[in-house]
Structures are given as structure tokens and as C-alpha cells.
């Protein structure tokens, strides 16, 4: 079995879109989190300006997938069955962070929740709830 670092490295290699977003996986602190540094092409509303909701969703979904492969220990990419996103606050043009919790890990399906925040972890900007199919 591979370690968490190798598992995440494999995820990044398998998903070119992670590099496109610029998503960073943090395993150092004991708790698994991700961070998304701000870049101008992530903006959805240039008037405010605000991050694109899809970018925040994508970040939380990839965090959820990362958490699934870390907990299940399987390097196989989980397949997204469905995700539901609630937008709570406007995403400001600054760094965003996310973490995910597995509510239930079944034999085939993982039920996962994720939240994203910016400068204040107590003020989430969005939350995600999703089901992932684990391919064995």
C-alpha cells in the first residue's frame, strides 16, 4: 500500500484539471486540506469581483475525492455520482481553503461533505455534499 503523499501525487497526475485550477494539496499539518491561490482567471463576476462558483465547487469536489482516496487507501479515482453545492458567501479574490469529511464509507459508495473558506475558517463561503463511486 502506498503512503498518503504518493496517493495524492498519483491523483494530481491522473487529473490534469488540478494543475489547470492551481489547486494545492496540504498533507503536512496532520489534517488534510487544500488551498487555491487566487489568480485573475478564476473570477466569475468581474464587477464585484468574485470567484466563479464553479471554481469553488471544483475545489471542494477535488478535496472530497482526495479525502476518499486517503481514507479508503485505494489509489483508484472515485467517480462522482452527484454533488450538491450551497453557496453561502461571495468568494473574494483571495486564497481559498477547503477540507472534507467522509460521513460514510461503504463498500461502493462514499458519502462526503466538504466546506470552503477564505480568511476566516468560521465563515465558510460554500459547502458541498456528494456521493462518490469507488471503483475497485
Amino acid at each position: 500500500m502506498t503512503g498518503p503523499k504518493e496517493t495524492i501525487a498519483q491523483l494530481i497526475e491522473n487529473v490534469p484539471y488540478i494543475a489547470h485550477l492551481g489547486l494545492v494539496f496540504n498533507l503536512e499539518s496532520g489534517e488534510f486540506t487544500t488551498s487555491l491561490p487566487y489568480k485573475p482567471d478564476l473570477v466569475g463576476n468581474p464587477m464585484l469581483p468574485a470567484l466563479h462558483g464553479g471554481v469553488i465547487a471544483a475545489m471542494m469536489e477535488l478535496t472530497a475525492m482526495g479525502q476518499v482516496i486517503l481514507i479508503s487507501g485505494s489509489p483508484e479515482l472515485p467517480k462522482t455520482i452527484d454533488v450538491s453545492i450551497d453557496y453561502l458567501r461571495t468568494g473574494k479574490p483571495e486564497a481559498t481553503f477547503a477540507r472534507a469529511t467522509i460521513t460514510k464509507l461503504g463498500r461502493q459508495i462514499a458519502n462526503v461533505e466538504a466546506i470552503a473558506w477564505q480568511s476566516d475558517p468560521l465563515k465558510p463561503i460554500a459547502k458541498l455534499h456528494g456521493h462518490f463511486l469507488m471503483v475497485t
Partner: protein
Amino acid sequence: MIENPAPKPRPEIWQIMAQHTGQVSDATPQARAIGVIITEVTKANATGTMEWREDLVGDTQSGTMASGAVITFVDQICGAACMAALTEPAGFATLDLRIDYLRPSRRGHNLRTKAHCYRISRHVAFVRAMAFDGDSDDDQIAAVQATFMIIKSRKDMLKRSDPKANMGENT
């Protein structure tokens, strides 16, 4: 006596959008970054495309487009359908979005999304969308349900980040 000519009817928002489909998503940097193009707008409806691209792939083995890129794409088209349902100019923000994946999209296949705003009230718009990876209705890859909050003024838009202003709702 000179009579005033009859005033020209003001074009509806969707009509302006339909005339400038190319510019609608060009105003959104992230939509441009992933190649989202609005192709057709009618009242309360929007259709758009996103080309298959190597750097947007979510699984190198299957070549399927990353779910995250698909969400941004469908969110954008749902937003356009919401805008095309407005009778007067207003801002809007996605409240929630749910996407069901029927199957992974195929390598090299461009994506297409059709969105319809089936109900719009003063404050909320409800949108449904379908995403396809081919020209036929049998090529559906995802089903989407989204809700948008209608924001009448910039002041209201800024209020959204003030918890006292809306009694904790949405904050």
C-alpha cells in the same frame, strides 16, 4: 402639428443577449479560461458549448472532462438562462446547484448544455439544465438543478456579506 413618433419597444434582456451571444460569457474570466461559449438564447433559455481539452480532463485513463470544469460550465449556462428570464436588469448569484452524473463524458467529445429557467420570482430563479457530450438527446451526461438569488441593486449585493442585514440568511 408634428406628432411624436410611437416609441420603439425596448428590447427584452434575452433579445439583447441573443444578439450578442459571443459576448455573454466573454465578460466572465473563468468562462473564457475553460472555453465556454453561449450559442443560443431565447426567453428563459440558454444553450452553450465547451470544447474537450486535454488540460480540463479529470481522468487521464478515460479522457473524461473533469467534473469541476463541467460544474463551472453548467453554472455559467444556468446563469445565462436566469438572466434571459429577467424582465429588468438585475444581478444574480448562485444559491445552490446540484449535478447528477449519468455517465462520464467521452474523450475528445465537446460538451453542450441546455438550461431553462422554469420559474422566476422577485427574489429567486429556478433553473434546470441537461449536459450532453454529443448532438443527440441520447448523449446526456448530466442533469442539473440550480437556484439563483436575484439581486436588484449593488447595495443588496454587498449586504449579502453583512450578517445583520439579512438575519443570518445566506451568511
